[in-house]
């Protein structure tokens, strides 16, 4: 099984990066729509909404691209994992409050925040855990080699 891990990890990176690059680019295209979606969650204070709408898509894209650079992979996965946890908590909170809102996950192509978006986030979290918790030995080897040079 272990010898398949690099391939599985690469596929997981490809899927997760694909989702986050797509989501990030769609949000970058229309930051105003993203700000409106964030506002509808009623979690962030109004003064922080626009700042979050400006920064969030770039964090997503940068972290997703980092998944393809071996030494930066786990840093990228850490950011994406953190963001996915935040999104999941926001969706659960919206569902608990009975909010009838768009999830804002893919800009104007988003679906309603509900059980399916929640299921998608949980699947992503499992994939991200796979990326984060495997291949540590290889990264350590690379780090040691870099330090030796």
């Amino acid at each position, binding site marked *: *099984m272990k010898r398949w891990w690099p391939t599985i990890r690469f596929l997981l990176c490809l899927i997760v990066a694909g989702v986050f690059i797509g989501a990030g680019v769609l949000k*970058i295209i229309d*930051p*105003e729509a993203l*700000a409106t979606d964030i*506002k*509808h969650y*009623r979690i962030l204070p*109004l*003064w922080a*909404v*626009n*700042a979050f*709408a*400006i*920064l969030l*898509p*770039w*964090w997503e*894209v*940068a*972290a997703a691209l*980092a998944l393809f650079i071996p*030494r*930066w992979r*786990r*840093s*990228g996965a*850490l*950011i994406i994992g953190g963001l996915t946890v935040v999104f999941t908590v926001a969706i659960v909170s919206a569902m608990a*409050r*009975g*909010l*009838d*809102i*768009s999830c804002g996950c893919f800009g104007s192509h988003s679906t309603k925040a509900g059980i399916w978006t929640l299921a998608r986030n949980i699947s992503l979290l499992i994939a991200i855990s796979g990326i*984060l*918790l*495997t291949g*540590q030995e290889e990264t350590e080897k690379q*780090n040691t080699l870099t330090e030796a040079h």
Partner: protein
Amino acid sequence: MLMKFSEFGTRVRLLLTDRTIWRRTFLLLLIASILAVCANALRPDSLAWVIDRQASLNPAENVELGQSSTITMEKFKEAYWNMSAFFVDARKEEEYQASHLEGSINIPSVNKEDYLDEIFMSLPMQETIIVYCEGGDCASSHEVFEFLAENGYPTDNLRIFTEGFLTLEQEGVLPIIQAEEASTSQGEEQITGQEETP
């Protein structure tokens, strides 16, 4: 099992204590943030970093802030029994047809523009209009509220009932019309929840 529990714990600990990873994570966030700042400054439709509450708040956002435009269940019932307001259901057409408050008007937020003629015919501008959707703080009622305001309805006369239709249905004190599955095709409807009368 792919990974033993103890091995999983070790890997998590390794991850959390690896300073290099945290340093790179911080650097990555910093680079992305700088790019975001530059991109936002360069784009023609750049977003203001902080919303100007006074200048940019629309009526719907005033409601979000809990100001004057929302009404309580008590006031809602009072307005209903006194017939002192018009009731707008902002849910989807199929949801409205499945069950709705007797006497309410359906203006689905998804295609509200198609209902403009009906709005002008059914809703007098000088009367109080109460908008609601399914429950909680759903966005549909806010969108219809904003739409009515944009079309000349004075915001002083517009209210949002934030508890929504689900609360009305649960309370069961106002007449709810439910389309019976078997008789929907024949246009028959069943009225439930009439514990009080106007």
